[in-house]
């Protein structure tokens, strides 16, 4: 795989002085300020400033942790007064959760910084701690050395499989960015997502908040969304893009529609959405004009009429009958069926909905893939999964289960140093400037930094995906689709 020529990997470090430390180095008061540790640790954890009578407190995040024990420079062993000790940092426990573990977040940060999967051995970043779904699936790699050269492996997928004379869009990596609307994320976030999509020859999505003018330079790589509120939907925006997405529901809050608080409906947001400033905006659920597949088809026909080249994607969540909905979308003429699982991200959703409503994406992929196959429609549809795809391994597993590709959102935000604190919608919004339109907070980072971080993270994922394909001896990611035989499940598969 050769990434698109626009992809340039450049180191893009954290924008903060300190990173979140996994380890903690403690110096007790038996320290005599001899400076041995400062001399021995090559990572700069210990700093002794000439003229000061005490060594500076350790810079924990730079420490590589317990694996250092085997090094001859291991400071804990070197200290003549046994003043140093090494432990897990209690702070690390406050980072992450069952789905996105602290290791996974840290690793994503490293990918966004370096463009490659972490070299550190102490991070378990390919699986989370949720105890189900992707976290219980493993690849069954065949033994032996890989025979295929990485450069020969393609990660491209086509998005139009209908053969209907419309554009045959090919993306270079089987992932694109999820919808985050203007108003829910900061401008640099939105623009960097679009720039990254252009660089990687893939897509990003406007979300349901209308089509900001700043995105026009990236039209070629933007999916515009038609959601139930129809905010800011215009013929001209539909004519501008190559893919139009109907959003029926969102995995994190299926069946609940959307709600933009009055205070977030600022002048610019209101203009974009063609609404009155300061009023709360509701996206109803469902489309009040869609009660049947026939109605659904009428909407798709309408888009196709307005833009004779555009592909149509249908985004739905994952109820019990998601398979029927998918087949219905096929009959209605959609090109892409995008299923969004219950554990997916959101700018704001009731906790009760995130946890309890609709099924996790893992089950839905298999259900939809199989049903489309039974109905003879699988070959004509592109199946995109989202809602809980956190890592390159999740992506590859989703493809093995039957998806063609995936949409990601949280992983993009984490690349921009989201800590998943969940405060995106409260008060001034995201304290870290990612999901906020507050003038001060949204100026915390610039577009350049953010774009490079995304380009790097997409690259690291691609590297991992190519590695997986290489181990399976595959020349294209398309060969991986539906290959559940390459997976095992630690609860069911017999130990090998």
């Amino acid at each position, binding site marked *: 795989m050769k990434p698109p020529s626009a992809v340039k990997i450049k180191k893009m470090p954290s924008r903060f002085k300190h990173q979140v430390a996994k380890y903690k180095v403690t110096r007790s008061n038996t320290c005599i300020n001899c400076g041995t540790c400062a001399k021995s640790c090559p990572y700069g954890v210990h700093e002794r400033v000439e003229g000061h009578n005490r060594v500076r407190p350790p810079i924990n995040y730079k420490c590589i942790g317990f694996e250092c024990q085997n090094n001859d420079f291991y400071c804990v062993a070197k200290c003549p007064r046994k003043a140093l000790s090494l432990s897990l940092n209690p702070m690390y426990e406050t980072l992450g959760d069952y789905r996105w573990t602290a290791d996974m977040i840290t690793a994503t940060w490293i990918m966004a910084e370096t463009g490659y999967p972490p070299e550190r051995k102490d991070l378990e970043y390919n699986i989370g701690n949720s105890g189900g779904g992707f976290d219980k699936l493993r690849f069954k790699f065949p033994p032996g050395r890989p025979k295929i050269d990485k450069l020969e492996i393609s990660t491209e997928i086509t998005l139009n499989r209908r053969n209907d004379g419309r554009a045959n869009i090919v993306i270079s990596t089987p992932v694109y960015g999820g919808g985050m609307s203007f108003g829910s994320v900061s401008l640099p976030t939105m623009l960097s997502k679009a720039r990254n999509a252009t660089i990687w020859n893939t897509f990003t999505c406007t979300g349901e908040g209308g089509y900001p003018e700043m995105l026009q330079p990236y039209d070629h790589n933007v999916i515009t969304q038609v959601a139930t509120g129809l905010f800011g939907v215009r013929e001209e925006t539909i004519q501008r893009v190559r893919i139009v997405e109907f959003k029926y529901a969102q995995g994190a809050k299926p069946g609940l529609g959307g709600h933009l608080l009055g205070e977030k409906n600022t002048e610019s947001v209101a203009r974009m959405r063609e609404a009155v400033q300061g009023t709360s905006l509701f996206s109803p659920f469902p489309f009040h004009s869609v009660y049947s597949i026939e109605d659904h088809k009428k909407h798709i026909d309408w888009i196709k009429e307005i833009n004779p080249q555009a592909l149509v994607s249908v985004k739905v969540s994952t109820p019990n009958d998601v398979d029927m909905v998918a087949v*219905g979308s096929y009959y209605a003429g959609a090109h892409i069926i995008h299923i969004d699982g219950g554990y997916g991200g959101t700018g704001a959703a009731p906790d009760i909905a995130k946890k309890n*409503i609709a099924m996790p994406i893992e089950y839905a992929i298999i259900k939809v893939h199989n049903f489309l196959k039974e109905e003879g429609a699988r070959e004509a549809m592109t199946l995109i999964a989202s809602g809980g795809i956190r890592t390159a391994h999740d992506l590859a597993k989703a493809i093995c289960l039957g998806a063609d590709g995936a949409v990601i959102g949280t992983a993009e935000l984490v690349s921009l140093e989201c800590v998943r604190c969940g405060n995106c919608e409260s008060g001034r919004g995201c*304290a870290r400037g990612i999901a906020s339109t507050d003038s001060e907070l949204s100026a915390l980072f610039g577009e350049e930094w953010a774009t490079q971080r995304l380009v790097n993270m997409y690259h690291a994922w691609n590297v991992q995906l190519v590695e997986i394909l290489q181990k399976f001896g595959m020349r294209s990611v398309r060969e991986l689709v539906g290959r559940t035989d390459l997976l095992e499940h630690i609860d069911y598969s017999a130990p090998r």
Partner: protein
Amino acid sequence: MPKKYHINSKVTPLNLDYVFKFNIERGENCINCGKCTKVCIYEAHKRRKDDPRKMADPNTVVCRNCFRCIQECPRGALEKSLDKDFLNIGGSYWKSDIFITLWKQAEDGKVPVTGAGYRGPFTGSGFDGMWTDMSEIVRPTRDGIHGREYINTSVELGRKLNHLTFDEKGKLLSKVHDTVDIPIPIIFDLPPDNLSPNVKAALVKAAVELNTCIVLPAGDIASDRKKYIKNIIPLISHKEIDKHQGLIKNTRIVAIEYADELLSNFPAAKDKIKKISNALTIIRIPATKSVETIVSKLTQNGAEIIHIVADYRGREVNGSTDYNRRLLKDIIRAVHLKLIDDRIRDEVTIIASGGIAMAEHVPKAMICGADLTAVDLPLLIALGARLYEEPEKLLIIPEGLEKIPVRTLTQRIINLMGAWHSQLLEVMGAMGIREARRLRGESGRAIFFEEIDNDTFGKLFKKRETVNV
């Protein structure tokens, strides 16, 4: 259309000592530069009032875990950890986070809303092992959430007829039984008896204002409570019906403790009650191993409402400590299916309780087959109570609670129920169900972990093994 049921929530803080999640400490190497004050948008870091050159201790209660102060302090002087009290509170069933969310709901009466996706385990035991379904495109409208269309959460208590009979002239022959309607599928269950009078009063007042009922021991119903008797369900032994005639006369529902003799002589007990008043009778029965058989027998014997009580962690009660005891989810499903098999499901109302800890447990219990639920501990947690599971169940009522005005306490309970009611609407709205009564036993509209996991991964991976062999 019935009048729309509305719960009036009002922000009601209670200045008690709450457990918080994140503990921030400022190390000695702080140089008082004030950077943390600038970066914390939740104002956890302030200077000392008496000496503004120095930083005050961090106000960790407001910390929202954004990591900015940690990452931006020039000296790396700040440390954050999970608070010890937070880690200790509750236990394996009553998770620490439950307390924080219940306190918050009791304070503001709102549906908890956060950003970012779900953070918890993929699945869990009991109610955590099921998801509720939703309707996608091709079903009728269901916008109940924002007041567009009314979702009715009321349920009926009492026996329903299997069918009606008419004479040749078309006159109704069947006697239609009395029922009691309550506007939410939740009643309040038996508070512990060591509560201070203001707390007890608040529980009763809240039940009255919400127009639901509260189960109280008959002996504990002070005469000044009698004006609320329509919302009180006195709990008596079946042997004491005569003794409590006065109460029974005025109440709408009585509860009697289950005893084995009731299997045969329940009709006699019920007749005795009916002679005194029209009150409906609940039989309160512990969720033992054979509870479904007993429930079925009682129903065949004329029981109209049966209240199944699991332990405080929603487990079967059988005197043993083993962890294989059934959980409320499975107990209710077993009872519901048994009654369906015996073709008597509609003849009895099933109330489920024990371990109802979060709003989602209400619709889930109903989907499993309960008609409604009874809550107990969350009502006290709303008032700041803490619960510890280990080494044994311990409920701690906050100090000073006895001095808080009844109105404040009542409002907090109402707030919590308001938040639960709104969350029930969210779940029902997503399912496209407009009548709470229709949730009962709708297990086809839920996704059960064991079933779906086995149907997808189980089949997929086991099948292959057998093919290989």
